[in-house]
């Protein structure tokens, strides 16, 4: 018989369990993550509420950067505009290698007039316009790989800390916008409420919300599985969050904390015993940011799209070829900067 030739061992090969069991498909997850990290994320947050409720301060505190210009600074032109004009500003912020393009949409003038009827209309128009822009891009013949997403992912609605109930303007706004965008109501400047007052206020607000059929985020009907439902139920039992915002630091027990200093004590913003800012931040950013985007994309945007396709009795290509100008009720000063 011919002599057997021993194969030369040059490179190593997979052993044992690798040989017989491991294909390696979990690496797909990593590939996907790497790609999304490179591309970066976008997040668009809208703040709605009367002047002076601390909207800009809160957003700045949330993202630990000056992403929103406060209207109380001395060089800001004091002018209560006659109509609600929307104002969108973008910044790119980075943390631990993750890049995010954050757009804050401000709504100065909302609820500031004597007669506030229909003050939500410019906002409704803006939200629809962003949906329309996305739809057009999606229908385009030569569409971009990543369609720029200017849709409003989250609308933080500021309730003044009256301690009573929802006001008519609050009900009107949330009713109309609740079906179009994810609303996160917050109790602003909550340092005027004691803990008991706060609890009662929240309960009354929750009652009012249910009584008026208003759906706020996280919407019950969009829970996908029992696990998510359980998680979100617990959140629903504690909204709206009572927040305090600031960008000033003080010394407490040898530590520097963000807080508001008064004669009777220092209100620590990030102390959960003082206010619920940390809870809001964790909800919006650390645990549900992607979910906010998903709800906007998969549910709210799809609803808009179906509506549009139904009402336009046109076929597909006409929609693409039509040249409707997008109406302009918005002040879009988009400034991009690297913080």
């Amino acid at each position, binding site marked *: 018989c011919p002599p057997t030739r021993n194969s*030369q061992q040059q490179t190593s090969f997979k052993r044992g369990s690798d*040989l017989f069991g491991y294909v390696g498909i979990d690496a*797909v997850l990593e590939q996907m993550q790497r790609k999304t990290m490179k591309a970066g994320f976008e997040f668009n947050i809208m703040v709605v509420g009367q002047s002076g409720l601390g909207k800009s301060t809160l957003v700045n505190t949330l993202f630990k950067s000056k992403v929103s210009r406060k209207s109380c600074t001395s060089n800001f032109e004091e002018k209560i505009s006659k109509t609600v004009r929307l104002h969108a500003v973008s910044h790119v912020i980075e943390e631990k290698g993750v890049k995010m393009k954050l757009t804050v949409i401000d709504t100065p003038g909302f609820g500031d007039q004597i007669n506030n009827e229909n003050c939500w209309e410019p906002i409704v128009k803006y939200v629809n316009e962003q949906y329309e822009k996305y739809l057009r891009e999606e229908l385009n013949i030569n569409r971009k790989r990543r369609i720029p997403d200017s849709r409003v992912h989250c609308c933080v609605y500021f309730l003044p800390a009256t301690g009573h109930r929802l006001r008519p303007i609050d009900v009107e706004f949330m009713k109309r916008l609740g079906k179009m965008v994810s609303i996160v109501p917050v109790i602003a400047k909550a340092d005027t409420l004691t803990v008991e007052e706060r609890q009662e206020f929240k309960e009354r607000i929750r009652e009012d919300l249910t009584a008026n059929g208003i759906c706020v985020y996280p919407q019950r009907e969009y829970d996908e599985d029992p696990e998510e439902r359980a998680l979100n139920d617990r959140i629903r039992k504690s909204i709206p969050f009572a927040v305090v915002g600031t960008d000033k630091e003080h010394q407490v027990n040898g530590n520097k904390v963000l807080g508001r200093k008064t004669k009777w004590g220092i209100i620590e913003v990030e102390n*959960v015993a003082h206010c619920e800012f*940390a809870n809001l931040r964790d909800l919006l950013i650390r*645990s549900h940011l*992607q979910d906010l985007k998903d709800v906007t994309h998969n549910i709210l945007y799809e609803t808009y799209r179906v509506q549009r396709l139904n009402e336009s009795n046109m*076929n*597909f290509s006409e929609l693409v070829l039509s040249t409707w100008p997008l109406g302009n009720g918005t002040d879009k000063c988009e400034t991009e900067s690297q913080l």
Partner: protein
Amino acid sequence: MDAIMLQEKLVERLLCPRVRTARQKEKQYVGFATLPNQVHRKSVKKGFDFTLMVAGESGMGKSTLVNSLFLTDLYKDRKLLNAEERINQTVEIIKHTVDIEEKGVKLKLTIVDTPGFGDAVNNNECWKPITDYIDQQFEQYFRDESGLNRKNIQDNRVHCCLYFIPPFGHGLRPVDVEFMKALHEKVNIIPLIAKADCLTPTEIKKLKDRIREEIDKFGIKVYQFPECDSDEDEEFKQLDKELKECTPFAVIGSNTVVEARGQRVRGRLYPWGIVEVENQSHCDFVKLRNMLIRSHMHDLKDVTCDVHYENYRAQCIQEMTSKLAQDNRMESPIPILPLSTPDVDTEKLIKMKDEELRRMQEMLNKMQQQMHDKD
């Protein structure tokens, strides 16, 4: 940390007051660096899908290779036809689906087989059923995507096509060239040299060089590996370079386990030695598997979605609009809205709209008739 556990932990902290620990380092930390984890959690729940097509003549070892790649046995009850039965056989398209789960990640793998390709005496246009199949999947996806209910779109588009080139010849044959040219703009083609254990290393190198030359010469666009990131380490870049220089991969597959050098390996037992499938010095199987599954699966899907599908879509729309422009009469709208599974409400709506259109068309015809009569 498991992404789901992380999420739960965050909600816990959300709702329960806790003792303040050293927060100094957390000061500048906003927290959106958890975004990749949040996205991760959703993908684990959803799972992935991947459609792989294998094409080549019978007996090239396609089924064996697929079984080796995914460590499954997809072709258990296969009946091989004899020569007579195959005379009148046309190219069929057969799909096998298997669900694989590993470390919590689910993959729904679909293998599209093309038995009969290149087997007949006259193989003219034998790739036509294959291109038709690929186009059909694109069309189906296009309709679904343009439809009203987009909740559960199934992605059946072919993400990758492994094309098996026989090792016996001197490079690409006419049928190889024609096939790849017919498909290179519809699907990611990865050419492989099949049954590479009948070639010596020098012969393999010669054949690979020859094939690469011919691919360039005929202008065939096979799947290109994306460029390495500039911030990857040197070792990775070196591996990447080696991978690119090794194409087309020379592969061997095996369903049997043999004993070699005191270990059980997948291989083929010959009187003159044992060929080990997973030995990198024997064949490129490991490189193919790593590339296909472990490093480029997602990119293959992306190129299919972003390039091949978009080209198809753009072409489709342009054809439709040019047709519309040519016909000046008002026709009923081209069915883009779903014809597949409309629900009751949508059906009613579509019927209503159709009725309206028909009425409008009648009116228009009447008016035209009247004007005609007047002249």
